[in-house]
């Protein structure tokens, strides 16, 4: 089992630890709803150092990224990031990821450099996938083991972080990033991204720096920053309708089915799965990922069947939780073509009983 540089800190804070993607990670420190509300209303800090990071660097770095990614990395300026996915050859998804276009200080003349941030559960699979398709003049460097990641999220994230950073955080707009110094640690990649919908930043740095920054931020009697675990990370992302790899998207789901058409740039001439996605766009997809709100207080769980009013099986639940903000159970799942209309009444079968639910537009939180 892998650990992060902060494992002893989590244990000292009394976190309940859980194995996740081969890592020992904090699930919850106090309660999921307290941590969730801290992020929605103030500021929470997550250790997400389990995430994987690869550097793609070389004269044809862009060509490799363009081939394997559904989004268009040619639109990225240095200092910008984008969400994307790695399609496989049959129209499924190898992984979803963030792509950062890095500065070229460390590059030789004519080279470009990108950082790919991938799911911890897929690091080996992704690396193999990238290497298999790297017929370009470019290198793939896996920096996952030495790279830590903190997510500082919430409406007060900038206020909490600002005292530790020289540059004005207001200058970092959404989905852009800077290399900066934080609490005396150089070369911290500070990115205005996140997985909570609450705004804030993600900080990539060496494991050593991550510990220093964590200690500085949580030091003293700061009431305005709350350590948060994977439990709250899941409720926060689900309220926003963000996909979780392994639940809502996987090797068998198409980005168009998952509502990720916006990161699937069919105008880009060459990338994996393009022909399949063009055909899906033309003919329509066979199933759609939808969000739904359950009327009863029962929580929908992954794998529960979705039925229509006539008790005909129309799909499967892929994620579900009790939304702390809406105080209602919410979920996402795939339904057969034609059943994805907003307002459509559906039934969720727990195996023993049927729960009434209504399809709603995501994000659940407006």
């Amino acid at each position, binding site marked *: 089992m892998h650990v992060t540089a902060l494992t002893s800190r989590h244990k000292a804070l009394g976190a*309940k630890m859980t194995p996740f993607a081969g890592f020992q990670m904090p*699930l919850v420190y106090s*309660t999921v709803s307290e941590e969730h509300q801290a992020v929605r209303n103030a500021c929470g800090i997550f250790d997400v150092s389990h995430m994987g990071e690869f550097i793609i660097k070389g004269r044809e770095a862009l060509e490799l990224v363009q081939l394997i990614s559904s989004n268009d990395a040619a639109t990225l300026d240095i200092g910008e990031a984008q969400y994307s996915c790695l399609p496989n050859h049959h129209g499924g998804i190898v992984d979803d990821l963030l792509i950062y276009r890095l500065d070229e200080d460390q590059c030789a003349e004519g080279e470009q450099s990108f950082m790919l941030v991938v799911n911890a559960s897929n690091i080996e699979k992704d690396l193999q996938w990238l290497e298999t398709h790297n017929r370009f003049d470019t290198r793939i460097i896996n920096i996952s083991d030495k790279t830590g990641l903190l997510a500082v999220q919430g409406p007060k994230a900038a206020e909490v972080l600002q005292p530790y950073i020289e540059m004005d955080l207001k200058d970092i707009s959404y989905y852009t990033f800077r290399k900066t110094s934080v609490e005396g640690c150089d070369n911290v990649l500070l990115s205005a991204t996140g997985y909570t919908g609450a705004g804030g930043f993600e900080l990539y740095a060496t494991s050593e720096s991550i510990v220093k920054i964590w200690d500085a931020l949580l030091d003293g009697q700061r009431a305005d920053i709350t350590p948060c675990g994977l*439990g709250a990370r899941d*409720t926060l992302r689900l309220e926003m309708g963000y996909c979780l790899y392994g639940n809502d998207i996987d090797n068998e789901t198409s980005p168009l089915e998952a509502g990720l058409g916006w990161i699937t740039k069919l105008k880009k001439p060459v990338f994996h799965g393009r022909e399949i996605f063009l055909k899906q766009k033309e003919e329509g997809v066979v199933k759609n990922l939808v969000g739904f709100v359950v009327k009863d*207080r*029962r929580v929908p769980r992954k794998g529960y069947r979705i039925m229509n009013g006539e008790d005909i099986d129309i799909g499967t639940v892929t994620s579900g939780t*009790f939304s702390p903000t809406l105080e209602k159970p919410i979920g996402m799942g795939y339904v057969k073509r034609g059943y994805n209309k907003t307002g459509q009444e559906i039934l969720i079968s727990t195996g023993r009983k049927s729960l009434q639910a209504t399809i709603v537009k995501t994000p659940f939180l407006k």
Partner: protein
Amino acid sequence: MNLPAKLKYTNEHEWIKIDPEVSTDDQTVAIIGITDFAQQELGELVYVEVETVGEQLAKDEVFGTVEAVKTTSDLFMPVAGKVIAFNPELNEAEGDNPGMVNEEPYASGWIIKIALDNPADLEGLLSAEDYQAVIS
């Protein structure tokens, strides 16, 4: 971990005790809840569902369900009996406070009361010491 010595326990992380206040010569009433260990493992409960009040159930039959943020878990009868009450504090229509199970699993957070088929059935259950071994 809080494990009152006077209670009986099950491998399914429930506790049971005789309720002397409402027991009569004709009927022995027992109170059932989940253990401190169980509520910690489940995390915050968002809902407790019991739709078996009035039903006669066998040992190990499902009498209800608890919903935590991350998981759903069935509740099993530690012994045979008739379900005669569901804690109004937890009931959505009344107290609507499932978090009471997290706060006071052995007191205000009790889940059901049953009329025991056979009070001697309790002797077959786990002592606090036995249960301690189950969870450690």
